[in-house]
Each structure stands twice: as structure tokens, then as C-alpha cells.
């Protein structure tokens, strides 16, 4: 590599003498000086000393100089300067639109409405597809559905079992501290079993599934949209709702209650362990007491809720995926939105269920 000559600027009366390499890597050396001088310009340029010029360098020359070709500029660089001048002339100065806070706020509101609209539209389409399926059950994509059950259900077993086990243990531990002060150790059975079966089992399962599978549904569908695979399905006369959305929805509706049973069992195991170690309530006593104090309805309430949670998570995941535009940023944003919305709806519905079951005396 030959040595580069740093660019230089010298003021000579009403002229500017330029020297050295006016190329991108070295332009930073004269940039500030050139910007300051340009305010006093336009200058008559004297470019005999310019050894190299690239398009960024030429841009600076145009900025500094008048309309004439700089004196003494090597004929090799003249076409470049001419091209740069022409390009700048053809595209005049710009106006940057600024976005006010009010517009930003309005856009957020519209976005939320759009999300809700999409959610309801997807729900409607799923219901229609479900009705069509009832009329023609052989059209069920059972293979895809089972794949979802495996991917969202079977593969989530270890993480859900572990977290539910820990949750059951923590529940027993925190409750146990209170119960011990009253000498009411045996009530740990009611505390752990009821809260776990009715609330925490379905809830922890829903949160993990929303983060695992809801996000995966969104990312998958959004990518397919980006590749125009959804459009391709439509042109081939196939319904994306029936082929893609319904299997995910049904798969999650099957997987969620199964996972919740697992979470209940694992949580119970954690609770039993802590009860034994901390409160002296041994395994046999604990497990013998469960059916005495916990009526079947508590278990079924939790399972019922988990089915609804599964529906909501799959619905949100699919809706956000189909709403995505398919570029990298929108895939990320919609996946995030899918998880946040799914958990939001799960907790809102959970609160509604509490009120409802209370009124019904379950």
C-alpha cells in the first residue's frame, strides 16, 4: 500500500487551496474545518494539489466551492465531480416530517384497536373453521394437531414439572410459616392443594406456554407471511385458518389441560416435601387428607380454566402472527406483543373466573 496524503485546506485571499487525498477514510481530518469555511463560502477552489477524490470528497468540494470546475483539478476526477453535481441538482433539498407526541399517542391507540380487531376477527374465523370441521371431521389435520401437542405439550414437560415443583414448595413454605405459629400445621394440605389446583397450577402452566408456544406460533406465522407462504396457500385454494391456525388452536386446547394436571402433580410433590421437612406432616398423612378436603370440583375448575387459557394463548399467538408484516423488526415486535397480550388476557380471564365461580358457589 502506498502512503496516503492527508487532505488539507488553505485559505489564500478569496481562494481555497485543496491538497492531498479527499477520500472517505481521511475526510474526518478536514471535516470540521470545511464545515466552518463553507459558512463563508462559496469559495473559488484551487485543486491542483488534490491527489485523490472519491464521491464523498466530491460532495465536500461541491459544498465549499462555487459552480465552476475547481482550477487545476486532475481530469481523472472531473467526471466524478460533474456526476455528483448533477445528482445533487436533480434531487434538491429535503424537508423532514416531524412526528408530534399527539400523533404518536394516536398511533398507539389505533394500534391497540387494530390488535383487538384482529384478535376478534381471528376468533371468528377459528369458530367458523371449527363449525366446518364439525360438518366434515375428516378434514381435521390430525398430524399437524398432534405435532403441536408434542411441541407445545410433551416438550414442555420438564420445564413445567420443575417450575411447578418449586412453586408448590414455596407455597408450602410461606404458608407453613404462618400456620405453624397457630399450631395449625395440618391445614397446609388445604392451603397447598386448593391454591395449586384452582389458581397456580393453571396459571403457571399458562404463563410458560404463552412464553414457549404462543411466541413460537407468532414467529412461525409471521415468518411465513414474510415469505408470502400464507398468500401462496390462498392462491392454491387452501385455507390458512384450517391448515395453520386450527391445528395450533386444537393442539393447545389438548395440551394445556394435560400440562396443568402435570403442574398440579409436580406442585403437590413440592408441597408434600416441604410439609414433611418443615411441618412434620408426613407423606401418608398429607396424601390421605387431599381427597377428604378437596372436592373434585376444585380440580375440575382448574382444568376448565386451563382449557380456556390454552384457547386464548393460541388465539393471541395466531392473531399476532397473521398481523405481522414479516420483516425482521415486525416479527420481533409481534412476538413480544403476543406473549404480553396472552399473559394479560390469561390474568384478566382468571380474575373474571374468580368472580364467576364465587357467584356460582363453586
Amino acid at each position, binding site marked *: 500500500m502506498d502512503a496516503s496524503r492527508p487532505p488539507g485546506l488553505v485559505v489564500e485571499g478569496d481562494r481555497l487551496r485543496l491538497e492531498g487525498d479527499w477520500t472517505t*477514510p481521511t475526510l474526518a481530518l478536514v471535516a470540521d474545518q470545511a464545515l466552518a469555511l463553507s459558512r463563508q463560502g462559496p469559495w473559488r477552489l484551487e485543486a491542483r494539489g488534490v491527489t485523490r477524490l472519491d464521491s*464523498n470528497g466530491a460532495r465536500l468540494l461541491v459544498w465549499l466551492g462555487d459552480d465552476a470546475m475547481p482550477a487545476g483539478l486532475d481530469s481523472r476526477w472531473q467526471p466524478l465531480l460533474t456526476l455528483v453535481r448533477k445528482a445533487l441538482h436533480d434531487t434538491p433539498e429535503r424537508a423532514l416530517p416531524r412526528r408530534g407526541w399527539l400523533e404518536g399517542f394516536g398511533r398507539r391507540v389505533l394500534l391497540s384497536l387494530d390488535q383487538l380487531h384482529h384478535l376478534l376477527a381471528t376468533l371468528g374465523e377459528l369458530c367458523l373453521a371449527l363449525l366446518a370441521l364439525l360438518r366434515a371431521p375428516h378434514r381435521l389435520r390430525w398430524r399437524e394437531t398432534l405435532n403441536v401437542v408434542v411441541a407445545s405439550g410433551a416438550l414442555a414437560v420438564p420445564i413445567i414439572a420443575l417450575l411447578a415443583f418449586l412453586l408448590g414448595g414455596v407455597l408450602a413454605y410461606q404458608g407453613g410459616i404462618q400456620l405453624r405459629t397457630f399450631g395449625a400445621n395440618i391445614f397446609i394440605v388445604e392451603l397447598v392443594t386448593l391454591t395449586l389446583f384452582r389458581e397456580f397450577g393453571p396459571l403457571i402452566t399458562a404463563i410458560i406456554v404463552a412464553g414457549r408456544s404462543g411466541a413460537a406460533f407468532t414467529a412461525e406465522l409471521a415468518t411465513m407471511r414474510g415469505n408470502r407462504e400464507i398468500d401462496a396457500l390462498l392462491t392454491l385454494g387452501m385455507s390458512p385458518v384450517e391448515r395453520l391456525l386450527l391445528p395450533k388452536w386444537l393442539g393447545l386446547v389438548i395440551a394445556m389441560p394435560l400440562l396443568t394436571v402435570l403442574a398440579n402433580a409436580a406442585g403437590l410433590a413440592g408441597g408434600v416435601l416441604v410439609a414433611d421437612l418443615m411441618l412434620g406432616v408426613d407423606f401418608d398423612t398429607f396424601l390421605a387428607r387431599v381427597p377428604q378436603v378437596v372436592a373434585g370440583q376444585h380440580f375440575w375448575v382448574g382444568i376448565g380454566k386451563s382449557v380456556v387459557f390454552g384457547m386464548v394463548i393460541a388465539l393471541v399467538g395466531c392473531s399476532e402472527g397473521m398481523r405481522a408484516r414479516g420483516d*425482521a423488526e415486525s416479527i420481533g415486535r409481534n412476538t413480544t406483543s403476543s406473549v404480553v397480550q396472552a399473559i394479560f388476557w390469561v390474568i384478566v380471564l382468571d380474575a373474571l373466573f374468580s368472580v364467576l365461580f364465587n357467584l356460582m358457589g363453586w
Partner: protein
Amino acid sequence: MGRRDESVPVELAGLETRFGALVVHQGLDLEVRRGEALGIVGGSGSGKSVLLSVISLLKAPHAGRLKLFGEEVDMAMSESRLMPLRRRLGVMFQQGALFSSLTVLENVMLPLTEHTRLPALLIEEFARLKIALVGLPREAAQRYPRELSGGMLKRAAVARALALDPELLLLDEPSAGLDPVSAAELDALFNTLRQALGLTLILVTHDLDSLFTVTDRVAYLGQGRVLEVASARDLTESHEPEIARYFGNARAQRFRADA
């Protein structure tokens, strides 16, 4: 920076690349002259795009020598030595590969912000110049890539590749997916830029029009190596059976399209 040096931009000798057991290139030799426009053609799977990846320092060859701007390159070299070389070449990817979360202007500004210590004002001006040079309307600067048509996307990709004023521009199927008018305009743009900026061009293309209007020489890739390098006109009249078949088909297609 040896920008004016007369070094050979790209020199490949005995290049071998493979993906697992699949051998893509074997014993490939190629020399690209300073200031020329070299076309690369070949059938599907002949390794044209892989060759571009090797030259743009994205894929390490298995064996053979690669010299860029007279400097021996080994992908095992530290990033601090590879990066200055990468900065001297620009790549336009087939699908544009513009960053979808950035506007066109931000796409073009990104390399300038990253690699120079110029004032922000100048960086924006330089980026706007590049956008103007490739013939995009000024409103395009504020658009996101998804809001551009195919032809505009390619132009924006060229603008970004030119941001740092590279000496060597690599183009991967620039006219693919474009209508004939846009493709011809893009070819004219390459010729203008090449003359004014003194660029060396390497373009992979299937487009016979591009081969004839843009390139000085064309290298035909086949059987893992360069079968022949000649002007587009001479290559179409080559007696090498594979090359003759390639151009025979391509020409036939062209005539069918004309009819």
C-alpha cells in the same frame, strides 16, 4: 489506504470450497483487473454466489489462495486485519438485504457512522448523495425497505454498498426479478458509476443484456472451476460444449421472449 495503487483487486489461485462433502469449487483460478467489469455466469449450483461470498470475505475457502488488493488473505486472520479489507469492497445482495428496521437513509448512513468520525451533518449529506447518485427520488430516503418497489430496493442496496466509496463492488444477480426497463436502467447506472468512481465491478448474472452492456470480460464457472474467461461476445461463440449449451439455452429463451 492504497486507493490509487494499481494492485490487482482480486486474485484467486487453486481455490477450493466445499459444504460438507459437497465440493463447490476445485482448482479455481481467477484474476480481476483494476477498473474492469467482470461478469460471472454458470449453471445453477455452479457456485457463483459462493464465489462472491469468498471474495467478500464471508466464507472461508478450504484451500487455495485469495489476494485482495494485492494482500494475501486468510480468513483465519484477525478481524482487525479483515475489516479494513472488507471496507474497501461493497456488496449488493440479491434480495437487497437492507436492514428492515431502518429507513433507506439510515441504511446508507450506518456504515459511515460506524467507520468514519465525520460530523453527523456530513454523514447525512454523504448518504443523501449516494441515494441521489443511484437515481432514487429524495422522498425514498425516508422510506422503509418494505415500502420500496423491487427496482428501488436494488438501487437502495447499491447506495448502501457505495456508502464508504469502495474500490470493488460485488453485485449478486442485480437484475433478477426486475422488469426489462428497470434492469436496463440499473445496467446504465452501473456503467455511469463505474466510469465516474473508477470502480471495479464483479457481477453474477443470468441476464444476457447485462453481460453485453456492462461487462468487459465474462468468466464461465463450470465443473468447479473457471472454464473460460472472454468477452461476452466471444464467450457466446465458445466451442466448449457446456458453455455453448448454456448460451444456446439462454439465447433460445431470449428469442422466445422476443417472439
